């Protein structure tokens, strides 16, 4: 599947989280996502960027525009950190589970808002979450 365009942004502050939202919005618009699709992928990105910042101690996001054939287009986002990792991914994915003072909605919500969702984490090494939204 060819990647048409790619870029990366750091996630080290609240302001960076806002910049991630803005860039994801811009790319989703360029892909002619509908307003609802844009909002869904931006919201998922906001949740994952905050997790990278708050739980992962900072990291980065890679954006990719994908094309499958001439018709199917998608936006893939990969959030990566070298934080503490997640000991039990299944539990972390459970709606309402949080080790902080959040609502425990970020991971489960981001999965629901995406077409594809992939998470890898190793304790002491870091976490990587990839979401794809197809148009």
């Amino acid at each position, binding site marked *: 599947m060819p990647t048409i365009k790619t870029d990366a942004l750091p996630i080290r502050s609240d302001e960076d989280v806002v910049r991630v939202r803005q860039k994801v919005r811009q790319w989703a618009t360029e892909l002619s996502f509908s307003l*609802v699709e*844009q909002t869904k992928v*931006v*919201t998922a990105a906001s949740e994952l960027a905050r997790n990278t910042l708050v739980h992962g101690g900072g990291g980065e996001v890679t954006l990719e525009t994908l094309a499958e054939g001439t018709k199917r287009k998608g936006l893939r986002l990969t959030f990566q950190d070298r934080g503490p990792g997640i000991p039990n991914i299944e539990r972390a994915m459970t709606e309402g589970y949080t080790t902080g003072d959040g*609502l425990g*909605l970020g991971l489960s919500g981001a999965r*629901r808002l995406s077409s594809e969702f992939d998470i890898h984490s190793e304790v002491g090494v870091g976490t990587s979450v990839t979401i794809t939204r197809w148009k």
Partner: protein
Amino acid sequence: MADRIPILRMGDCLLVSVQVEMHDQLALTLQNDLTEKIVAARAKGVLIDISVLEMVDSFIGRMLGNIASMSKVLDAETVVVGMQPAVAITLVELGMELPGIRTALDVESGMELIRELIDGQDPDADDQD
């Protein structure tokens, strides 16, 4: 980026119009500022206009919920107005139903709702909630 969202006073109501990208610290500052202002101004109503917000995630949703329950404790009514349809649809899919938050379509109907809620409170009635 701005570090504070202005809070306007209109009679016994406070009016907040979110005008910028809400980063997390800004949301927390607004929550704290509103708590202080409700007490200082003895406000009875709080209207939060989010019509320009293109996204509400779990953090902003939680802040709106906190403001609503905090204002209740301080005997003020909070109404959130102007949520864009795409934002509302996304919030439900995210798993946030915003329980306990009153909403209205626009500022005008939001103000009407606040008035009704305030006037509906009979000061001599027994406290039932």
